[in-house]
């Protein structure tokens, strides 16, 4: 789930064909320009969402003597 949130902005912005156009304009701003500005906020939201998910799903286990490491699913 967190991974999807993180991949979303990358996929959306590397798919240039989906937004390289003038219409619909927002005020005077061509779609190409304002769409990418919108993604600044969406991306911030996505990474923050991913952060909350990761912290909740995999709380940190302090490393002490004898701790087991079963967090291998993580990143």
């Amino acid at each position, binding site marked *: 789930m967190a991974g999807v949130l993180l991949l979303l902005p990358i996929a959306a912005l590397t798919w*240039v064909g989906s937004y390289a156009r003038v219409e619909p304009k927002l005020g005077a701003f061509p779609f190409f*320009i304002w769409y990418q500005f919108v993604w600044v906020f969406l991306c911030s939201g996505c990474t923050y969402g991913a952060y909350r998910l990761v912290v909740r799903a995999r709380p940190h286990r302090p490393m002490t003597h004898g701790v087991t490491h079963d967090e291998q699913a993580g990143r």
Partner: protein
Amino acid sequence: MNALAVTAADNHTGVNGVALSVLIVLFLLVTVMGFLASRWRRSEMESLDEWGLGGRSFGTWVTWFLLGGDLYTAYTFIAVPAAMFALGAVNGFFAVPYTIVLYPIIFVFMSRLWSVSHRHGFITTADFAAGRYGSRGLSLAIAVTGILATMPYIALQLVGIQAVLEVSGLGGSGNVIAKDLPLFIAFAVLAAYTYASGLRAPALIAFVKDTLIYLVIIVAVVYIPSKVGGWDHIFTAAQHKMATTNALTKKPNGSYIPPATQYWAYATLALGSALALFMYPHSITATLSSKSRNTIRRNSAILPAYSFVLGLLALLGWVAIAAGTKPIGLDGQANPQLVVPQLFEDMFPSWFAGVAFAAIAIGALVPAAIMAIAAANLFTRNIYREWFRPSATPAQEARVGKVVSLVVKFVALVFVLTMDKQNAINFQLLGGIWILQTFPAIVFGLYTRWFHRWALIAGWAVGMVYGTVAAYNVVKPTPGGGSQHFAGSVALIPGLAQLGYIALTAFAINVIVAVVATLVLGALKTPTGIDATIKGDYFADEGDPRVIKINPGPHEYSPSP
């Protein structure tokens, strides 16, 4: 002073007294801060950890300012609008998606690198490669690439300072000494406080820098468009200029909205730059100086605020088109790099133009200091200690680091003074191509030991050579009828018939070579080297003990997958 300003305002090339005074006062302020920074969260500065990573103590907000100050350099503030002004959206606006896709990438990779570095006391990526692969050769390759790619990058910060000084009317007079004297002074001040305070200096100055930048950009974006006829007029003017045929190349000046033939170029420039940025030593230095793993994750959610500002700055390049800004240097030649300072001087009252100039100049000093420190860390750890003085004490390391930071800045100064500025810009493009070739060894290494260390060296070497040659072959005609190599960073992708960022193509080749060579070396059963890290290292956080202090149980010796 006022009379001087009035006469100067009428004259593009004259000294703008008020603006210059404001610039100098703000510059002096940050200089004092730079020296006082050594007392901030005081320590003895006796080790590279202290001098070069600020004691690894920075929290979320300091890291936000430091990384923001580090990644969004004066060069970004000068060059991105310049590219928008001269060449259009594909060459300039890609910086916006680039700095957006950057953050998911940081979120994933950098927290892991932070953890393993925290456990093992790694200061550089080359440290990590040495620990992970037990390979001095690979470590050296990464260290050399990092230093190589950083030098011209520092030089470009100085070019940014020079652009501001030139527009405010300083320098450029007859003899060589007077011409570059202001730059020498700025440079000497920077060198001195970096030497004295280490990473704490740019961290503290970053507060001033970012505040000034935000202030100036917001004022500029609200105030200037209304003076030049509104956004409608700005976009029409930009579209018109980009569609006009260039006399020299017989092609349109640039792109307003990327055409279908340039989708690949736009996407690969954004993605390739984003992957490359966090391989740069200065990004690593700023990241590792944060105090916890989650500091980095939180920052990847709040750093995009800078991307928004960057987008606005990029648009200032088009605002300048509508405003009819003429970026003419003191030597009488047109120089697009001057477009934003010139726009500010034309549009703002003198005193605020001074604030804007200070924002750009200080915006150059912060990253220049961090880059010099990062290059010094690399040299000290991975070349000096590794190859010349294995017995160096932490105090000796810190001393060598300080001296190297001076040497690095001096080389960068030589770059600025001797190279053609157009060349310096192209070397920076090349820097991105080079640094991305260290990506497989570092980022893949964070997840797997599958790749063979020699295979990674082979992939790196092939990627470096391919990237350099491909960039050399990008030729553009010059006004004199000649041609110039290293003229861009986009070339045909082999087998795809699309234009793409050379760095990403070279990276793909690099990975293929590394995979094939790993299979071959595996079949030959060549030694793979000792892995000093364990799986748990990649999840460690603040408060977890450093490796030296613990006595792990046998299960922690099991090799990572």
